[in-house]
């Protein structure tokens, strides 16, 4: 069948071109003069010239702004444009291409039934570079081999081969293998299973008196992957100190061995706190807490680091999609997203990049575009987050995606009934993300990009929007008995978990495929996005089908929950999986690990930097424009933070909406009363490098401090943990993880803030072509969710009125430490502040964090475009402390406020002044200068 290629160009300067030119120059392509982008559409079908004309006008172009040309492939050799190199890029077969799908659907709607299938691509006209340079530009910026193929000159689309699957199943002879052969097998199939685990598999099949099928082996590898089963956090860990070979034990604050970090430190904290408002912690897809009489709210944060490293857009895109499905997995409607991102330095010299690593600039722009694309299109506001920069993230960026949901109480069901149908909703199944779970459990190497390429996919937010529409209604109609999302491990994990108690029969031939030819194990393991699995009573299937038809969502019945206690998967008549659930879910041997706890640490107390008055101004301004502190507006503004109409405290605030809020407040649409949800986070890799235990305390305090600053009730804050660490098999790496977990427990108990869910991403290490390990700084993200009783009493950080008094609340440490302590008095300080807020005494509040008090004051001035007279010891201006905030109080409320803080650390440190200048002792800095510094990050 003929294939036609349409090239669509803008009649005026395409805004994309200038952005590309800027990015390319930043990556060192200085000779580049001009770069023009055009869209390519490939349509295969029997079409007359007039059809092609009509398709161009009605479908492929905007007649007002664009024009197009088409040709039948293979394209005749066109004379090359003067001094221009043509680069064309198209998606690899099987990569999600929603536009192509829409072209076919819409063409048929228009009556062009001759259209068979379509594909899309891009065409770049590059001026000023030689062909070899354009080739490296393609690799560095314009294309990504993981999902695309590119060509200098004219490209042709590649559609998936339409071959029928033989359905062959491979038998893996494992029973006779030696230990060395077992390990070799694990490596060869990228199963990431260690010897003990491989032996457990071997013993099971010796007992079964047969060898496993490839489907069974892959199922076990997925179910037992670090990603799915959190081996390290459940391991038995021997605590010690092996400095110069002589083993020391016990170690202060630790038993000789720890049996499961989760149970010992995280769950136990939640159990001890035993908060009545916690509805579900650690057991479900997301943690759930009480909101009001009618509703409960759920919260979950996940990472999508490894995929984002190799395909930033797709990795972040599917990361957002994944955590949204976790919220759907607790039958809730997603109402807010959060995103915390860690990247390498944006100005990194491209030449110093390790082989196989994308430049941090490219990773950031791709990740941010991926978050934007998914969140905006699916209609969930992105209201809170952070962006951090550190060399340690160059090869391993971190992408934390969080999602909040709301649901009427008592409607979420989690128990499949015998006889229920196994129903798959949403997207179709392809070779997407195969082995993603094991992939994310392995250290990356220079080859990972190619070998695990299939591990990354592009998301399809509109298909997932259909899932939200269907599931929220199906929940209210009580149409299902159990629900879970298809994430890492695909159907094998989702169906496997749901059937883990009662068992099920599944037929893989009934699974709807994106394209034919998948082997049984590929169907079962595929990590195709936008799929949910439900347990539905037979009598409810029709009603669910009707909902699905209304919202253009596909429903597929793939089997039955049987009550036989075994997981049985067939491909037509062939049984490809027949395993005992108990073995699959409890058969994994507990890992035995060693953790090295270092008693002595990096210098714990250092002199505060003596900064002479004339340097204060320069130091403050340079802090304000340093990447980690400076405005993130350029990113925040491309996320929709207003959709759903509930955003009370927005990410940017103040008169000019260019000052950084401490936390977000949202009032969920459809809730009665005045209650709101507070979202904040704490993260500090710099502290992580110095002292993991105290880092955990600090980031916990930061998250809670930020929440309290906008009005959250300190008695009603729940938290999530997300640990991103290196290789836990290295005792010192595991040691710092153990320290962080203990810090989490102690801090959680200290604040009475229970953990309701958590996740870990380990092996964030990179074996460079140089043979050296590149590991990330130990990174713990604490995401906090709190409640504000009256959103009308929410507090923002912008100065409100000249003449108001500025107080410093909290035990302000004058001695600078490498990692600040959390003052013992802190919970009482937050409680008093909350009382003051609910009594309407507080005009503005902003917490002291990176850059210290001076930066806090500066940001408040920026927010209100007002000045501040600050009277504090210059040497303490930049101290980084915990448990402290600056508070603005009207003169009328001074005595009431001070009464609130009787016997608590409180200092009157300044006053709001009309003259827009920040005055510190005898230094004066114009607010305009602060604004300029803050809004112009020195990235390059």
């Amino acid at each position, binding site marked *: 069948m003929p294939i036609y290629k349409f090239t669509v160009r803008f009649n005026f300067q395409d*805004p994309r071109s200038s952005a590309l030119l800027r990015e390319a120059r930043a990556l060192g392509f200085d000779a580049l003069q001009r770069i023009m982008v055009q869209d390519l559409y490939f349509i295969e079908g029997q079409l007359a010239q007039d059809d092609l004309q009509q398709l161009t006008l009605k*479908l492929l172009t905007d*007649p007002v*702004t664009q024009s197009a040309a088409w040709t039948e492939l293979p394209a005749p050799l066109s004379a090359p444009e003067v001094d221009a190199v043509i680069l064309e890029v198209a998606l690899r077969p099987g990569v999600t291409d*929603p536009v192509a799908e*829409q072209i076919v659907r819409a063409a048929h709607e228009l009556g062009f039934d001759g259209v068979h299938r379509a594909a899309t691509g891009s065409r770049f006209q590059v001026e000023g570079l030689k062909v070899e340079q354009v080739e490296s530009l393609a690799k560095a910026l314009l294309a990504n081999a993981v999902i695309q193929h590119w060509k200098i000159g004219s490209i042709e689309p590649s559609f998936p081969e339409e071959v029928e699957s033989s359905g062959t199943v491979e038998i893996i002879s494992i029973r006779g293998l030696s230990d060395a052969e077992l390990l070799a097998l694990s490596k060869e199939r990228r199963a990431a299973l260690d010897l003990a685990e491989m032996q457990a598999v071997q013993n099971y099949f010796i007992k079964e008196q047969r060898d496993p099928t490839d489907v069974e082996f892959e199922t076990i590898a997925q179910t037992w992957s670090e990603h799915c089963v959190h081996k390290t956090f459940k391991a038995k860990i021997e605590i010690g100190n092996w400095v110069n070979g002589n083993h020391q034990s016990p170690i202060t604050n630790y038993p000789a061995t720890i049996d499961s970090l989760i149970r010992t430190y995280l769950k136990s904290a939640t159990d001890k706190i035993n908060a009545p408002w916690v509805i579900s912690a650690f057991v479900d897809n997301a943690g759930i807490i009480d909101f009001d009489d009618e509703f409960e709210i759920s919260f979950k944060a996940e990472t999508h680091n490894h995929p984002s490293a190799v395909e930033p857009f797709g990795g972040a895109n599917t990361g957002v999609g994944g955590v949204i499905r976790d919220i759907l997995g607790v039958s809730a409607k997603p109402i807010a997203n959060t995103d915390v991102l860690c990247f390498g330095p944006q100005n990194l010299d491209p030449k110093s990049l390790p082989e196989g690593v994308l430049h941090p600039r490219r990773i950031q722009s791709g990740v941010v575009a991926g978050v934007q694309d998914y969140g905006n299109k699916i209609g969930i506001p992105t209201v809170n987050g952070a962006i951090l920069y550190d060399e340690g993230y160059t090869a391993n960026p971190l992408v934390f995606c969080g999602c909040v949901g709301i649901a009427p109480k008592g409607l979420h069901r989690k128990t499949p009934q015998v006889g229920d149908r196994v129903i798959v909703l949403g997207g179709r199944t392809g070779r997407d993300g195969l082995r993603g779970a094991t992939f994310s459990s392995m250290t990356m190497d220079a080859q990972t990009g190619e070998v695990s390429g299939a591990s990354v996919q592009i998301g399809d937010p*509109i298909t997932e929007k259909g899932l939200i529409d269907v599931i929220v209604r199906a929940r209210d109609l009580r149409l299902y008995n159990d629900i879970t999302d298809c994430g890492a491990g695909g159907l094998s994990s989702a169906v496997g978990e749901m059937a883990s108690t009662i068992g099920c029969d599944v037929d893989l031939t009934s699974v709807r495929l994106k394209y034919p030819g998948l082997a049984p194990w590929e169907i079962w393991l595929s990590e195709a996005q936008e799929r949910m699995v439900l347990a539905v009573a037979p009598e409810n299937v029709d009603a669910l089908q009707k909902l699905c038809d209304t919202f253009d969502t596909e429903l597929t019945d793939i089997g039955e929950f049987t009550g036989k206690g075994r997981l049985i998967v067939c491909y037509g008549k062939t049984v490809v999986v027949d395993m005992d659930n108990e073995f699959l879910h409890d058969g994994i041997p507990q890992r035995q690990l060693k953790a090295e706890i270092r008693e002595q640490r990096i210098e714990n107390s250092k002199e505060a930097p003596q900064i002479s008055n004339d340097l204060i101004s320069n130091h403050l301004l340079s802090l304000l424009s340093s990447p980690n502190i400076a405005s993130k507006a350029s990113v925040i503004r*491309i996320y929709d933070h207003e959709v759903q109409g509930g955003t*009370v405290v927005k990410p940017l605030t103040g008169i000019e909406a260019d000052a950084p809020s401490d936390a977000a407040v949202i009032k969920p649409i*459809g809730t009665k009363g005045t209650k709101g949800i507070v979202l904040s986070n704490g993260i500090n890799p710099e502290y992580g490098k110095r002292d993991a235990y105290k880092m955990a305390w600090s980031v916990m305090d930061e998250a809670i401090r930020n929440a309290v600053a906008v009005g959250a009730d300190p008695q009603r804050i729940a938290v999530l943990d997300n640990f991103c660490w290196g290789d836990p098999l290295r005792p010192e790496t595991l040691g710092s993880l153990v320290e962080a977990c203990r810090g989490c427990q102690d801090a959680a108990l200290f604040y009475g803030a229970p953990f309701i869910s958590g996740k870990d991403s380990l092996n964030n290490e990179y074996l460079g072509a140089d043979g050296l390990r590149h590991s990330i700084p130990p990174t713990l993200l604490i995401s906090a969710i709190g409640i504000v009783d009256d959103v009308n009493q929410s507090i923002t950080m912008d100065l409100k009125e000249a003449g108001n008094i500025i107080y410093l609340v909290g035990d302000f440490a004058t001695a600078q430490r490498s990692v600040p302590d959390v003052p013992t008095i802190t919970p009482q300080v937050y409680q008093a502040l909350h009382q003051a807020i609910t009594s309407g005494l507080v005009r503005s509040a902003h917490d002291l964090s990176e850059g210290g008090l001076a930066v806090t004051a500066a940001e408040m001035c920026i927010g209100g475009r007002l000045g501040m007279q600050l009277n504090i010891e210059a040497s303490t201006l930049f101290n980084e402390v915990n448990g402290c905030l600056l508070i603005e109080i009207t003169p009328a409320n001074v005595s009431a406020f001070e009464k609130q803080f009787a016997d608590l650390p409180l200092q009157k440190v300044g006053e709001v002044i009309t003259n827009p200048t920040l005055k510190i002792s005898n230094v004066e800095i114009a607010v305009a200068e602060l604004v300029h510094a803050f809004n112009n990050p020195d990235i390059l």
Partner: protein
Amino acid sequence: MKPKALVLQAHGSNRDFDVMDALTLAGADATGIPLNELRMDKTLLSDFNLLVVPGGFSYADALGAGKLLALDLASYFADEISAFVESDKPVIGICNGFQALVKSGILPGKKKEEKRKNESDVTLTFNAEGHFECRWVDLAPVSQTCIWTQGLEENIICPIAHGEGNFQISELFSLSAFIEQDQIALTYVYTNGVPANGHYPTNPNGSLLDIAGICNPQGNVLGLMPHPENHIYQWQHPRHTRGETEGSGLKLFENGVKYASQI
């Protein structure tokens, strides 16, 4: 008896509940109906007094924002919608809904007597800045012909959230007639009411003549990029903690609902 408002839920609408909330506050009886349900029974449309095409990302903006929803409107509801418009019932398209009304030719629309076929000689293209943008803007209500903006004195303050809101015209388009017919409904202005004159970010997307919203010559169909439905409560105001309360978007909907109840 409350006027009945239909909020058309397309594949990818996402501000449908926001606008239903606004319509309810404005005194309407608002119902969201998925496009596929309306296809099953097109006569449903005539039972309603007001039609809303809400914001979102119908069909993921594939091939241009609103383009494929416009195609649906033309393929499935052309007669029903033009009957609805001719009968002078109020219609509003917000953001993606505006894009769909424009790309289906319902806006800028034609005079009743004009018999020319609708041509898409205006469009909403990519923001001049080259990216999606979410920020609060000030809008001046201009048209007195438009039943939605008629008589509004105060500026409306509300957020935009779009990547393709840049209003442009083809050389075929008669701007003078468009202006004479009072079809410029809303424009981007500074807080003090001074026109943005194309200055970013006051005019956030580079729209010709700072145009944020337009109406048909009849005045009953309004399309706009910004989201007045996201400023109907005081606590939504970006400076509510500074005691600022002005610029509510609710009065726009009150205008439409009031008009609907009189038809």
